[in-house]
């Protein structure tokens, strides 16, 4: 705070006149070192904070601090490693025996047993509990009984889950799924204490978990104070005294607060500030890949898009988009041009393959125009790309994509943007098959597996296959991959399935999204995990 004493006095005088408290400087509180408190920006979670009911980043952030599950994804590599699980074994990729470690407790002292998991999963899957992530339990046998597509449930618990003893339970899946243990790091699979069922409202107002932090104070909609749990049994103990999350009405304000020294960490640098970020923060700016891919999706329920000719049109459109230019000029390199349908965070072993899409995802003006014309031109004569105009500054890049396509086609009307007022309205139009042209689509991974980038999106009638694309060869390959007991073989089979996407181009991959964050000079060792959530427990206060 530079010399502003006089002005400050003037403001203080006004403040006192208006019956105010003292005019303090920026006091972040909590001291430094191992007990230092880190303040961080936050957004108001959209849903109640329950593990199986939280499906967005803001709520997920808290769950990541307060809970640990059977498996945890390495914050650096994304690799699934056993956390509470001692071992997860299967002979046939369908019947799993899960043994948990004996020394884990919840922060209220309750011991974590096999039952803590089974009860929590049954709760999450049951239709009557309205859990938005219920479908994570769909692979477990009996899911269709406790959570039917329509009508009421005919069973209260999943028949595939059985408690064997205090530290062991078994899970029977409804199909072979060799990579299933790797999915168990998702927040929906964490154990829940008895308090959750006994007094649900009280638990929701102050969740109790088993992670490195406990919730000290929670003022819904405005702030949450998390403090280190000293008796935390895990290996990843918190390196700081706690985290204060503060809800911001606007991420620009959060960024301003960071530059003014009132905030330690912003995990979402607003697009408008990307130009200034290196001069404001220098090397305290993080821009690393996250498990998010953005695509253009098409309506296969519309006859015109489901023809052999339309395949060429889609491939042509893909080649008409200048990904390099758009990612560097509009996104300031916070996105990377996509060349497959997964994400770089998976790594080579996990199934990411740079360039798998081949020339179909490379900018080639001449070839693009040729393909589109060979395919009979854009159905309806014009491509309309729908997007929601309320958040995410989608307008800029949609216009840029259209520009790129218009340039190639030599026609100013070949592609136009189609804004939709709110995200909810946009999603409802997408999910009820109301759109007749293309639309922006995005996928944020639930767990770092190639399966998660393919099956929920492109498998016939999969929950997020909004365009209703269907291909027998793709489905068969996915089924085959899920049945493989060897992980490496499973991954290559998934990649074979991905090659079907190259041939058919059901959606056009655009770019991989990065996580971006900035931090103050009061803290160090800040990083983002593959889900673009800060690794809070590793942050050190100087």
């Amino acid at each position: 705070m530079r010399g502003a004493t006089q002005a400050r006095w003037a403001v203080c005088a006004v403040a006192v006149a208006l019956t105010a408290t003292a005019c303090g400087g920026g006091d972040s509180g909590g001291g430094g070192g191992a007990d230092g408190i880190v303040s961080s920006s936050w957004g108001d979670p959209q849903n109640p904070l329950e593990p199986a009911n939280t499906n967005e980043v803001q709520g997920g952030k808290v769950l990541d601090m307060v809970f640990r599950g059977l498996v945890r994804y390495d914050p650096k590599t994304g690799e699934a490693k056993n956390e509470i699980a001692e071992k997860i074994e299967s002979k046939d990729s369908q019947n799993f025996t899960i043994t948990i470690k004996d020394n884990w407790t919840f922060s209220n002292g309750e011991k974590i047993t096999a039952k803590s998991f089974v009860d929590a999963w049954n709760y999450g899957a049951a239709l009557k509990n309205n859990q938005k992530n219920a479908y994570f339990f769909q692979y477990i046998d009996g899911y269709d009984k406790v959570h039917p597509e329509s009508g009421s449930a005919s069973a209260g618990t999943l028949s595939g889950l059985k408690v064997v003893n205090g530290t062991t339970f078994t899970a029977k899946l409804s199909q072979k799924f060799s990579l299933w243990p790797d999915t168990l790091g998702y927040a929906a699979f964490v154990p829940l204490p008895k308090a959750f069922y006994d007094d649900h409202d009280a638990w929701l107002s102050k969740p109790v978990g088993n992670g490195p932090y406990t919730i000290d104070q929670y003022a819904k909609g405005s702030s949450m104070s998390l403090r280190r749990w000293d008796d935390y049994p895990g290996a990843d103990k918190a390196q700081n005294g706690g985290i204060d999350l503060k809800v911001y009405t606007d991420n620009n304000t959060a960024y301003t607060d960071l530059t003014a020294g009132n905030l330690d960490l912003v995990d979402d640098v607003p697009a408008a500030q990307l130009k200034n970020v290196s001069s404001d923060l220098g090397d305290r700016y993080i821009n690393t890949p996250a498990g998010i891919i953005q695509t253009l999706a098409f309506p296969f329920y519309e006859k015109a898009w489901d023809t052999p000719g339309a395949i060429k049109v889609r491939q042509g459109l893909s080649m008409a988009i200048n990904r390099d230019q758009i990612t560097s000029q509009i996104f300031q390199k916070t996105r990377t041009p996509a060349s497959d349908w997964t994400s770089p965070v998976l790594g080579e072993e996990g199934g990411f393959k740079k360039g798998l899409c081949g020339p179909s995802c490379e900018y080639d003006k001449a070839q693009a125009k040729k393909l589109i014309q060979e395919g009979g031109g854009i159905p309806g004569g014009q491509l309309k790309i729908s997007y929601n105009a309320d958040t995410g500054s989608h307008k800029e890049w949609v216009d840029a994509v259209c520009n790129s396509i218009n340039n190639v086609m030599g026609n100013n009307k070949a592609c136009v943007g189609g804004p939709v007022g709110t995200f909810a309205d946009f999603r409802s139009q997408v999910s009820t098959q109301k759109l007749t042209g293309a639309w922006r689509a995005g996928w944020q991974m639930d767990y770092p597996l190639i399966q998660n980038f393919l099956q929920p999106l492109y498998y016939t009638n999969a929950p997020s296959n909004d365009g209703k694309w269907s291909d027998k060869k793709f489905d068969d390959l996915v089924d085959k991959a899920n049945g493989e007991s060897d992980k490496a073989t499973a991954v290559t089979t998934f990649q074979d399935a991905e090659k079907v996407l190259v041939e058919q181009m059901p959606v056009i991959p655009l770019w991989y999204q990065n996580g971006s964050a900035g931090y103050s000079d009061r803290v160090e060792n800040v990083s983002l995990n593959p889900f673009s959530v800060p690794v809070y427990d590793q942050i050190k206060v100087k």
Partner: protein
Amino acid sequence: MGRYVIRRLLQMIPVFFGTTLLIFLMVNVMGDPIAGLCGDRQCDPATAAQLRTEFGLDKPVWQQYLTYMGNIFTGDFGTAFNGQKVTELMATAFPITIRLTVVAIVFEIVIGISLGVVTGLRRGRPVDTVVLILTLVVIAVPTFVTGLLLQLLLGVEWGIIKPSVSSEAPVDELIVPGLVLASVSLAYVTRLTRTSIAENARADYVRTAVAKGLPRRRVVVRHLLRNSLIPVVTFIGTDVGALMGGAIVTERIFNIHGVGYQLYQGILRQNSQTVVGFVTVLVLVFLAANLIVDLLYAVLDPRIRYA
């Protein structure tokens, strides 16, 4: 007087029902809010159906409206999508916005009226011209520009204030946001007062008061100002409602978790319970402020009576 108040209160009833119905319909037109709850993926149909039943979205709109209005009279404003009671949201948001509005109104009254009186009495002098130009500038520059500029200068460059308001939002942190919020209205109040004063300064009763040898201060405050305040009070009265509802921009810039922020969130998430609830209360505030303004007329000018 009593009869007048009762008549006015009765008039509020149709206005109240009309506005809430309109808001209700407008929010409903925006489409299915449940679709937005599951992020970029489709909610599974069974859960979506359950949620629709829980929030009463599966019924026809008129039925939803009737149930909603019925609930309101028992003090139940419904539940927001994040599981919080709307009344709970109101209990946190309204005190903050009321504080902010009070700060803004105090600025309007103190600075606006004083400047108006000063310039009104010195028409054509340099002070008058300077203030006129200044108010013109303030009216011309949008609030978010003034807000962001003050935030950047006072908050980041000079470090006099914190750029964002903490969640408790004490009065001292609300001074700068209050000033920003008040700025445009303040300029109008100044100009209204100035014109009104300048007009009445030539009135017979002022000349009489001066001729009687009353001290200048008494002439200005008791005779001139009191009679000149009627248009100003009307403006400030309607402004109370406008400030509370229109604080969205200011609240966003300074991170104030008040009514504007809740309304914004409610609209983004298409949460009709939140939007309708907040707007209903704002409508009531607006109606009450108007009634108070009308009653104040009689205090300022005893010739105005209500039968």
